[in-house]
């Protein structure tokens, strides 16, 4: 099967420093967690896939089509959604306006479920209660739901999620994990950037570790969670914190 996303040899420089040094990564459906410590280039990679940053070298293919050099809005229209780090909800727009803004009824969709505004409210009933609230008046968890809903109504076949668990309460984290399960069940592929091993391993079966600008390790989560040595080497996590 053709991979949904195929990244090969991607190099990115930012303000003179070499952030990504030849990233190779492939995702063929389901969910893949991109993990690693802070400052390793995870968000840079996400921004490069979306076309917000330019890569000097390499190739990023989505369903076989080259993305490098394309404008962000064209990349999004091919079927890639972004749930960005820090949620980035619009402060001038209400919850309902966020979803109306992003919803494009004419866009063709590859996933099994067609996402419209009503579907998002079914997925996150909390949002429906806040329908007229401005984006920044919401709690952190509600903002995360809104950021996910906003990406869903563009009907993506691949969803990039950058630190979705950041700042969430444990209960809210479970809600978002549950939502992610429903998305993968509905045929949407996920690339999840995460600091929280608990979140990452709950949402994805597979992981890739990004360290100083390159993928250093890939595999299945159960194997990683058993391998204390690997965890402490790449994630800086001591044995006690791995407990799930």
């Amino acid at each position, binding site marked *: 099967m053709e991979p949904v996303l195929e990244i090969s040899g991607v190099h990115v420089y930012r303000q003179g420093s070499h952030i990504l040094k030849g990233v190779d990564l492939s995702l063929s459906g389901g969910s893949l967690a991109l993990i690693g410590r802070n400052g390793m280039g995870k968000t840079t990679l996400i921004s490069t896939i979306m076309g917000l940053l330019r890569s000097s070298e390499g190739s990023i293919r989505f369903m076989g089509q080259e993305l490098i050099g394309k404008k962000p809005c064209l990349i999004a229209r091919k079927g890639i959604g972004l749930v960005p780090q820090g949620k980035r909800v619009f402060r*001038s727009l209400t919850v309902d306006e966020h979803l109306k803004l992003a919803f494009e009824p004419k866009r063709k969709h590859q996933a099994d479920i067609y996402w419209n505004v009503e579907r998002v409210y079914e997925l996150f009933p909390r949002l429906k209660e806040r329908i007229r609230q401005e984006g920044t008046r919401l709690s952190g968890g509600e903002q995360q739901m809104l950021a996910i809903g906003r990406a869903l109504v563009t009907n993506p076949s691949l969803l990039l999620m950058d630190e979705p668990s950041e700042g969430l309460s444990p209960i809210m984290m479970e809600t978002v994990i549950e939502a992610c399960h429903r998305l993968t069940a509905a045929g949407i592929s996920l690339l999840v950037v995460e600091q929280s091993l608990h979140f990452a391993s709950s949402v994805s079966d597979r992981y890739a570790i990004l360290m100083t600008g390159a993928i250093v390790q890939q595999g299945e989560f159960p194997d990683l969670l058993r391998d204390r040595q690997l965890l402490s080497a790449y994630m800086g996590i001591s044995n006690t914190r791995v407990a799930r």
Partner: protein
Amino acid sequence: MNVNLLMILLNGITYAGLLFMVASGFTLVFGLMRVVNLAHGIFYLLAAYLGLLIYRTTGSWWLCLIGSSLIVAACAFVIHSTLLRRVQGDDQRETLLTLGISFVVGDLLLAYFGGMPQRLRAPEMFSVPVSLGILTYPGFRLFVLGIAVFIGVFLWALLKFTQLGRIIRAGVDDRDMVAVLGIDIDWAFVAVFVLAGFITGLSGVIGGSYLVFAPGEDIHVLTYSLIVVIVGGLGSLSGVALGALVVGLIDSFSKTLVPAFTMFFLFGTLMLVLAFRPHGLRGREK
């Protein structure tokens, strides 16, 4: 109430209508899109002079109004797509570029039309004074106020209820985030720039029939637009309305009662607002 005082008050309010028209185009571009468009004043003056040209050939004021506005909107499109988009996001270059455009166009207008003050003649139907109980008032000024209210309501509805409005409001907050939703935000901003050009064109012809115009008027218009937008708060439509009202009333009262102090009162108000409400009366902190 004293009839004279009422007259000054009405003058202030109708002048505020004109100021609102002029400044609403400016706030769309500068306040919302953060494009420092110092060519705003020259768009106004260009519309007035184009109106003069169209009036001389056709004799129709309504044709002036629509024709000039369309031409200025087209100029705005050409300037945006050939020049401004190359320096997008770079305040300093935008400033220098638009200032340059305004010098060049200003000199061309001076060369062609000469330096004599000109005035457009509004249709006969507006020269009829309207009776408002204890005083009669020039019909044209009330018409100006009506147009200003219409433009205000139109822009409010556009921003509030349409997809273009949502794109603009969201784009002001976070441009990249709008783009990754698959929305071509560059196109939306071009549309706004052209719309602002059109409204500025309307206000140029209407203002040119309300007051006289001459070379150099563009700087005057730009200054007043800046004061209105800064007093009201950047990017806020209700702020522009409030700012226009404040500036219009101050201008009208001081010009009638203490003419020598008009500029002092205008800039004094600006200073007070900036000192106590740095983001303007209706502005929000970024």
